C-alpha cells in the first residue's frame, strides 16, 4: 500500500508525457470485453484531451502486469486496466469525476460495477460459453496470431480458464435467454439513468460515460451473437435507440475535444481521498 502511495507522488512529479502509448489487442480478433475496455480507455483519454497513440499487439495480456489489457505506457510508467489508467491520469492532474458530488460518485461506482458484472460477463459468456462462438470466432484469435499447433493448445487452456471463471461467478450455467434478459435489464437501467440528459451526470462527461460508451460500442459492432435462441443481439440493441443515439453523440463530442483539460485542486480532492485510502 505504501508503495502505491509513494508511486502516486512520483507519478505526480511530471506532467503527462508527449508520447504516451496505449497497447491493445488486434482489432480484427479482439474479444468483445477487450474491445469494450479498450474503447473505454481510449474514450476517457480523448475526453481529457491527452495525447497518446494506440498500438496493437497480440500479447497485451501477457505484457500487462495484472494480466488484462489495455496497457498504457507513459514515460517510465506502465499502467494496465481502465480503473488504473483513470487514477494514473488523475495523479498527473487530469480527472473528470472531480466535479461530482459524493452521492453521484457512489452512484458512478455502482453503475460501473453493474456494467462490469452484467454487460462484461455477458460478453465473456458470448465468447466462451456458446460453443459455436468459441470454436469459430474466439478460436480465430489464436489461429491468427500463433503458429500451429500453439494456437490450438493456448485456445484449449484459455477455454478451461474462462470456464472455471464463469462457473465461479455463476454465468456458465445460464441459458442464452437468461443472458439476453440480463443485458436487457442493464440497458433499461442505463436508459432510465440517462433520461434526457446529454451525459449520465449532467452536462459534462464523467468516466461512467466512457465506460458505457465502450461497452455499448463493443456490443453494437461485435460479430458475436446468440446461436440457440432466435433472439438476436443486434435487434436487441436496435430496440434501445436512446442508447445507440447516446453512442453517436458521445463520439461526436469526443472528436471535438481539443486541448488537454487540467483539473483544479478541488477536483482532485477525491483522488487524494482515494490516495489516503491507499495509504491506510
Amino acid at each position, binding site marked *: 500500500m505504501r508503495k502505491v502511495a509513494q508511486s502516486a507522488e512520483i507519478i505526480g512529479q511530471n506532467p503527462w508525457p508527449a508520447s504516451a502509448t496505449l497497447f491493445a489487442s488486434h482489432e480484427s480478433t479482439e474479444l468483445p470485453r477487450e474491445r469494450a475496455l479498450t474503447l473505454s480507455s481510449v474514450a476517457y483519454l480523448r475526453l481529457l484531451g491527452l495525447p497518446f497513440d494506440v498500438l496493437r499487439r*497480440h500479447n497485451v495480456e*501477457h*505484457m500487462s502486469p495484472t494480466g488484462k489489457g489495455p496497457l498504457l*505506457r507513459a514515460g517510465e510508467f*506502465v499502467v494496465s486496466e481502465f480503473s488504473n489508467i483513470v487514477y494514473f491520469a488523475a495523479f498527473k492532474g487530469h480527472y473528470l469525476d472531480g466535479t461530482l458530488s459524493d452521492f453521484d460518485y457512489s452512484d458512478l461506482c455502482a453503475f460501473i460495477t453493474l456494467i462490469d458484472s452484467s454487460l462484461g460477463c455477458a460478453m465473456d459468456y458470448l465468447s466462451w460459453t456458446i460453443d459455436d462462438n468459441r470454436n469459430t470466432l474466439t478460436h480465430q484469435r489464436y489461429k491468427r496470431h*500463433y*503458429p500451429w499447433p500453439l494456437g490450438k493448445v493456448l485456445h484449449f487452456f484459455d477455454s478451461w480458464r474462462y470456464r472455471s471463471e464463469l462457473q465461479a461467478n455463476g454465468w456458465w450455467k445460464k441459458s442464452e435467454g437468461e443472458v439476453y434478459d440480463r443485458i436487457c435489464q442493464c440497458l433499461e437501467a442505463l436508459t432510465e439513468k440517462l433520461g434526457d440528459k446529454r451525459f449520465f451526470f449532467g452536462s459534462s462527461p464523467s468516466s461512467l460515460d466512457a465506460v458505457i460508451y465502450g461497452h455499448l460500442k463493443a456490443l453494437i459492432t461485435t460479430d458475436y451473437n446468440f446461436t440457440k435462441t432466435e433472439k438476436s443481439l443486434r435487434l436487441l440493441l436496435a430496440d434501445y435507440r436512446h442508447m445507440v443515439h447516446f453512442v453517436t453523440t458521445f463520439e461526436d463530442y469526443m472528436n471535438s475535444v481539443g486541448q488537454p483539460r487540467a483539473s483544479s485542486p478541488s477536483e482532485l480532492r477525491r483522488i487524494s481521498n482515494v490516495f489516503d485510502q491507499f495509504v491506510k
Partner: protein
Amino acid sequence: MEGNRSEFGDSADSHLRDIPTVVERVSIDGLRRTKDDYAKQKHVDAILSATNFFDMVLKCVEAKMQLEKLGAFKHVGIFIDVSKGENAHPHGVEVTLEVEERKRVESSLQTSIGNNEGSMNFALRMPNLLGRGEKLSAEYSYSNRKTMDGRLSFFKPMFLNPDISWTKSVFKQSSEFPWSGYKNVERGASMQFTFPLPVLRAASHSLTLSGVWRDLRCLSRETAFAVREQAGHRMKIGLSHQLTLDTRDHPVLASDGFLIRTNVEHAGFGGDIRFDKASAELHYFQPLPLDAVLQLTLSGGSLRSLSPVSPIPDRFFLGGPMSLRGFNMCAIAPKSEGAYVGANGFWLLNAHIYTPLPFFRKSTGLSSLFRTHWFINAGSLFQPPQGGWTSGNWRNWAREGLASPRLAAGGGILFLLGGVARLELNYCWPIWLEGGDSAVHGLQFGIGISSL
C-alpha cells in the same frame, strides 16, 4: 589410446614382442540381456588376429575400452590363460572378457542449489534396455519456487555403434533471468542424431531438430519495457548442428590438447521465432615448464534474426565468473531501463595460467586438486552489421566488434571438484569498462563445468 600405446612402448620390454602367441579362443562371460551382436564386434574378433604377446595385450585393452563405451557394462575385466586340452597350440592362449552388466534400473536422488533456488532432482535410468545399448532416462526436479521440470529421453545406438546414435526427448524446463527481469518456461521435444564423419574422425557431429513452446513472463512490475514487450507465448522449431572435437587429456582442467565446439542453428521451420545463429569456441592448452599450463580461449557468435527484433532468450550475454571474469553475471551493456538485454553478436578472448600451489608441486593428496590461477580476459557485445559475413563486409564487422572492448585481469585459487567441476575464487581488476556494465573490483566466486 595413443597415450596408452606410447606408455606400453616405453615401459614394456621389447622381448614381449618376441613371444609368439596364438589366440585360440576369445569369450565374453557375463552377458545376460545384452545381445550377442552388440557385445561381440570387430574389436573382440581382432584379438584373434594377434601374433605376439604385446600385440595381444594391446588388442585386449582396446577391446575392453570399446566394451566400456557400449554403455551396457559396469565393469570389464580381461582374463588371459594358457590354452588347455590335448589340441592346444604350444603358444596358445584363451582370452576371457568378464563383464558385469549394469542393473536394469538405476536411480538417483539429489539436491542442488542454483541462482537463489534450491531443488530436488530425481533421476531414473534404464541402461541397455533392449540389449543393444538403448537407454531410457527420466529426470524430474522440483524447486522451492514450486516449479516442476522434467525430461524424458530415449537414447539408441545405431548400427551397433554407440558413436552413431539417436536421442529423442521431451522436456519442460523453467529458468529465471534476474539480470534481464524475466522468467522462461520451455516445453518441447527434440530429436538428435549424433555421428562421426570420415573426415576428422575424432570429431563428433550432432544434428538436432527441436520444437519448443516458450512462455516468457516478467519477473516483477519493474521489468524493463524492452523485455515486457516480448512476454507471452512463442514457438520455435529449429534445426541445429553441433561439432565437438576434443583432444584434451582431462575434461575439466587439461594440461594438453584442444577443444573446438561449434553450433549453427536455423530456427524457422514453422513457429514464430525465426533466426540464424552461429557460435564457436576454441580452447587451447599448452603445458609450460614447472607443471604450469597456459590456456587460451577464443569464442564468438552471431545471431541474425529474420524478424525485426531478436528474441531475448536467444541473444548472447557476457559477464560472470565463467565467461568474462571481472564482471557480474550477464552484466555487460546493452542495457535498457535497468535490464541487461544482450546483443546479437559477441567475442571473447581469455588467457589463463594455472600453476600448482607453491610448495606443493609434487604432492598427490588434496592439495593436488588446487591450482593458482592468473587470467586476463577481454570481450565485447556488439550488433553485427547488415549484409552478413561477406568478404566486403569484414571492415564493418571489425569496426562494430572492436568498438567497445572490455578488459579485466586477476588471479586466484581454483579447486577441482569431483573431476567434473571447478570452483574458482579470484580477485579481479576490471580495466576497460563501458557505461552500463556492472564490474567486480574484488573477489569473485564461480562454479563451472564448462568454462571459457
